[in-house]
C-alpha cells in the first residue's frame, strides 16, 4: 500500500506540476502545488512518509532546471520534516489550521528557494521577492483549498489528504 500510494501521488503531483500548473499562471505567478501536497501529506502521515515523498517529487521537478538543481529537493525535504514535527506536537485537525500551514510553509519555502541559490539577487530585489512569495502562497492556498474541498466532497479523500 505505501509503495502504491507513493507512486500514485508521485504521478499525480508530477503531472500537475509539469502539465497543469503552467496553465494556471496569473500575472506570471504559479501555484506551488508540490509544496502544498507535501505539507498535507506531512500533516496526515508524518515525517517519514513526507520526507521520502517530498524527495521523490522534488527531484522530478528539480531535474527540469539544471541551474538550481538540488535546492528544491533539499528545501522541500527539510520543510516536510519540520511540518512533520509540527504534526507531532501541535497538530489541530481543522481545515483552517491546514490552510495556515500551507500558507506559511509555501511562503517560507518560496523565500528560501529564492534566497539560497542567488542570495545577492534576492537581497537586491527583496520587496519584490517578498511580494511574489506571498502571492504564490496565497494563490496556492486558494487553488489547493478548492481542489481538496472538491476531492473530499466528491470522492471522500479525507483519509489521504
Amino acid at each position, binding site marked *: 500500500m505505501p509503495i502504491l500510494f507513493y507512486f500514485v501521488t508521485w504521478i499525480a503531483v508530477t503531472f500537475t506540476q509539469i502539465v497543469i500548473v503552467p496553465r494556471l499562471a496569473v500575472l506570471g505567478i504559479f501555484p506551488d502545488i508540490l509544496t502544498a501536497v507535501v505539507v498535507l501529506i506531512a500533516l496526515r502521515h508524518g515525517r517519514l512518509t513526507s520526507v521520502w515523498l517530498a*524527495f521523490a517529487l522534488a527531484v522530478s521537478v528539480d531535474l527540469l532546471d539544471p*541551474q538550481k538543481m*538540488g535546492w528544491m529537493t533539499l528545501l522541500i525535504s527539510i520543510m516536510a520534516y519540520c511540518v512533520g514535527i509540527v504534526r507531532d506536537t501541535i497538530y489541530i485537525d481543522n481545515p483552517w489550521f491546514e490552510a495556515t500551514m500551507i500558507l506559511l510553509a509555501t511562503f517560507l519555502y518560496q523565500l528560501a528557494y529564492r534566497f539560497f541559490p542567488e542570495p545577492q539577487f534576492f537581497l537586491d530585489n527583496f520587496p519584490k521577492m517578498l511580494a511574489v512569495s506571498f502571492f504564490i502562497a496565497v494563490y496556492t492556498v486558494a487553488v489547493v483549498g478548492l481542489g481538496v474541498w472538491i476531492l473530499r466532497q466528491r470522492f471522500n479523500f479525507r483519509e489521504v489528504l
Partner: protein
Amino acid sequence: MRYLTKGIFNNPQALPLIIVTIISIVMIILPLDARTTVSRIGTLSFLYPFNQLDRYLSRLDTIFQSNRILNRRLDSLTVVVSRLTENKYENERLRGMLDFEPHVPLRLVPSEVISVSFGYPFKSMLINAGTEKGITSNMPVITPNGVIGKVIAAGHRSSTVQLLFDPACKVAACVQASRAQGIITYAGNNYLTMRDVPIELSALPGDSVVTSGLGGVFPEGLFIGTILKSGESEGGLFHNILIAPGADFDALDEVFVITTSFSIPR
C-alpha cells in the same frame, strides 16, 4: 555537538532527512555540465511522458486558437466571396454587353525552389518544374503573397527564374486604386521602385501595386507589393515610388508558374 549528532543518528525518523540532505547537497555542488547531463537524462527518461503530454496539450491549445481565428476569418471571407461572386457575374454580364473578351482563368503549376542565387549578373532561382510540365520562357512566377519573377530558361525538369530583384527585370504595373501605370524595377535593399508614374496621378503610401498586363508577360491584376513612400522625382514630372514587395524573397520555398497563355494587350 556530539549530543546533537548522537540524537540525529539515534532517531530513525531523521535518517531519511540525512540521506535526502546528502543527495541534495551532492546535486547542488555538481558542476553545471554534470547537472545539465543529469537533467537531460531525467527529462528524456522518466519525465518524458509528462513533457510529451505537456507539448501535446500546448499544441492542442494552439490548434484550438488558430481554429477559432480561422473560423472567424472564414465567416468574413464567406461574405466577401459571395459579394465577389456577385461582382464576377455582373462583370461578365457587362463585359458581354461591351463585347470585351472574357478573362482566361489562370492555370498554375506548383513547383519547389531548388536554389536561389543572388549573385552577379542575374538574381535568379532554380525550380524543379520544366518543359515536361508545360513551362516555357517568359511565364510569370508567383507565390500566394505576390509576383516574384518570370521564367527565363526552361529545361526538361527544371527552370531558371529571373527574380524581381534582378536589375534587368522590368514589370509593367499600376497602382490598384488610381490605375496609375509605370514600370517596376529593383531599387536595392529588398525594395522595388515604380518609374514613369505621372505626378498628377495618385500614388499614396499603403496603396497596392499590381501588374497592369501591358508588358505581355504578366497577366493583369497580380499583386506585386505595397507603396511605402511616394515623392516627386528630380524633374518634378514623375512620382518617386518605393514599394515593399508582397512576396518574401528570403523564404522562397514553393512557387507557382502561370502556364496560361493570354493575349495582351487587349
